[in-house]
């Protein structure tokens, strides 16, 4: 049995963590926590960290003791510099909270790249963890909608850089932009995205701790994640009707199955495919054909098969990327954004137009 630590930072990290805890109850009811038990196969410990107490309060499925409030007004207002300061000031406290949870085999840290708290705390936590412990640490990073504003894009760019420098064992990307197709209002779109991420992560954790026909385990996962540019994403498909397993694999690797937009066949460097379902439905031939198809393009593909009687085929693919054109696009937009922000700041600083307006009445008195 694996010991797994999941940390969720900032509002986005907290909410995804809560979605994971909810998903673990299996039931969809918000009262599930009163009559159901979480179905983690492994020993999973979750910790939510935030500067905004309201974000922590809104969590429903995460135990109170798992929520760590770092008092600093209401968040750090998307300012990563402030966020870093606050982390430094509370470092020992935060790290003790993690330490209290015991020893782990693997750790996932979830955050948005663009906020203040999560995006600044996460690289620093990872750095601390890597210094202190041996277990691999993976970051699950949510990228902002492109139109969310220049500050967010700027934060995302710097956050990802800090993340790479933190010594993280791999970054799994999820892109709000790409997942926008969810539709509905922002709240339900977020919830939809969070549930998707949660389901994938749980599937992965479940797989890593399961008996599989073809061996894939934590070691394999590590190998996959260490490939490429250290950037990865997850593809997933869960059949709703009785479809051939081949189709399910294709759907998992298609843009609609991926958390981050990428052309798998061109950009992926290593992959791991986990297939779950009823023995009758998992045609070895089909699976082999598809896996071969993929490995001919990307290189090594680990595959695991989990037999669950009565279940329709479900496919999870973890893919590390050699290159990410989408990320490059994001960075180029981010560069523009950074320039734009700087220019604006300079302009305001030099001109102080409002002040000039006021200076026009210097030395005058009102006459009535």
């Amino acid at each position, binding site marked *: 049995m694996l010991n797994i630590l999941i940390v969720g930072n900032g509002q986005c990290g907290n909410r995804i963590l809560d979605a994971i805890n909810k998903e673990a109850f299996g039931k969809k009811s918000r009262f599930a*926590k009163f009559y159901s038990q979480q179905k983690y196969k492994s020993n999973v410990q979750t910790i939510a960290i935030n500067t905004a107490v309201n974000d922590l309060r809104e969590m429903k*499925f*995460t*135990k109170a*003791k798992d929520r760590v409030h770092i008092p600093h007004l209401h968040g750090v207002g998307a300012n990563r510099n402030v966020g870093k300061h606050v982390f430094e000031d509370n470092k020992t406290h935060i790290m003790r909270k993690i330490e209290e949870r015991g020893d782990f085999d693997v750790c996932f840290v979830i955050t948005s790249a663009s906020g203040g708290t999560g995006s600044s705390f996460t690289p620093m936590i990872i750095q601390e963890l890597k210094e202190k412990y041996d277990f691999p640490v993976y970051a699950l990073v949510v990228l902002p909608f492109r139109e969310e504003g220049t500050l967010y894009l700027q934060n995302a760019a710097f956050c990802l850089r800090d993340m790479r420098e933190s010594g993280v064992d791999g970054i799994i990307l999820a892109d709000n932009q790409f997942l926008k197709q969810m539709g509905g209002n922002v709240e339900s779109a977020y919830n939809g995205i969070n549930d998707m991420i949660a389901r994938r992560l749980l599937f992965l954790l479940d797989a890593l701790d399961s008996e599989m026909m073809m061996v894939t385990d934590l070691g394999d996962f590590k190998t996959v994640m260490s490939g490429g540019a250290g950037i990865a994403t997850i593809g997933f498909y869960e059949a709703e009707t009785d479809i051939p397993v081949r189709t399910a694999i294709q759907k998992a690797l298609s843009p609609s199955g991926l958390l981050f937009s990428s052309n798998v066949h061109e950009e992926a460097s290593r992959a791991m495919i986990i297939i779950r379902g009823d023995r009758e439905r998992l045609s070895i031939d089909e699976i082999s054909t598809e896996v071969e198809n993929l490995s001919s393009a990307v290189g090594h593909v680990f595959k695991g098969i989990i037999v669950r009687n009565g279940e329709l085929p479900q496919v999870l693919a973890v893919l590390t990327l050699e290159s990410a054109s989408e990320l490059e696009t994001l960075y180029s937009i981010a560069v523009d954004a950074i320039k734009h922000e700087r220019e604006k700041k300079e302009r305001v600083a030099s001109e102080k137009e409002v002040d000039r307006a006021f200076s026009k009445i210097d030395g005058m008195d009102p006459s009535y």
Partner: protein
Amino acid sequence: MAIIKRFLIIFLCVVSFSLAFAGTVSAASVLYNDTIEMGNGYQINNYVIDVTDVFVDANSVSFYVYHRDKEVKDILISRGDSFEFDIDDGGKVKVILNSVVGSVIPRASVSIVLTDYDFRDLHKNELVQGGHRSATFAGTPELKIIKSVDEESINVGDIVRVRVTVENVGDDRATEVLFNEPQQPRFILYDTLVSDPGKTTMDIGESKTPFVYELKATDEGTFELAPTTATFTNDAGQRFPQAASNSPTIIVGPSESLVSADLEFITTFDKHTVSRNERITGTMLIKNEGTAPATGVTVNIIVPDGMRFEGGSGVEQISGVPTIYQETFGIQQQREFSFVLRPTEVGTYTVSTQHSYSFDNGVDQDLQQVSSDDVSRNIRVTEGKYDYLFEQPLYVYLIPLLIIGAVIGWIYYRHKQYKF
């Protein structure tokens, strides 16, 4: 010697006894033996002997004798002579002129002797300065008391008004007048309109009404009212025999006005078969069918064991007994009271009621008491719908309760666990 001595003592006793208690004193007695100045007089009861003129030179005196203001005798006598006159009750007065004394105001020295008179009647016996004009006389007041009734023939229960008037028809003021009005058997004093004036006085000719009251006849028959009496004295303080009134006769016929309250108590229940713990409503209807209002109407509802009184309108628990109480209950009045009972045990029950009231029959002095009781029809109490629930052993309740408790505990625990 001794025998003679004893005889003498007995003899002396007898003599003194007869002297002390003899009704009239036939022997003469000297009332006065001294001088009287001219212009003064000597009064014996209502008679005054005035010394009108003293003629010193002629050794003679002129006497005038008055009975009250009326002259009865005038006489001029010389020294050594005497004259006599009669006073009331056969008494004789003899005046002897002993001498004439000359001085600034001349005086006559006289002896006045009274004979044949009962001395107990001698209320006045003295000198009067100024003669008869200054004398005060005592008379005989006479009280005439009349008792009258406004009706002489009545029926039992009727009221008769009695009036007592008194008039002083004597010749003197009556003082210390005290009336005595005896109680009248067979009647009750219904109302007093004018009450005993207490000790009073009555001038000559004066009338008074010392009593006016009303009597209510309680028995049939012909009755004489007992007379009113009065004691009194005259101005001189003399007592007189008490005066008494007449005794009017009243004929009392059989009653025409006897009335009575007649209350009917009717208890009904809304159902006679109930299941346990179900409520039944009883109604107590009270009607006065009589000719007099009732007072102190009391109904006790005797709730049997196995039933419980749950409340009611106008029904109060008095020392544990549901009670209806009405101070008065008018003629033809009718009222309904309801009460709720709850049977707690299966069985057949009756509810009894005890009623009592009183009324004034218009004749008797005391109120008439009436009491009765009543028992309701049977009320059958059967097993309640959910009664079997209570007959289950304890664990039947305990286990669900424990489960519910555990669930609540668990939910609370979880809530605490997730409450941030």
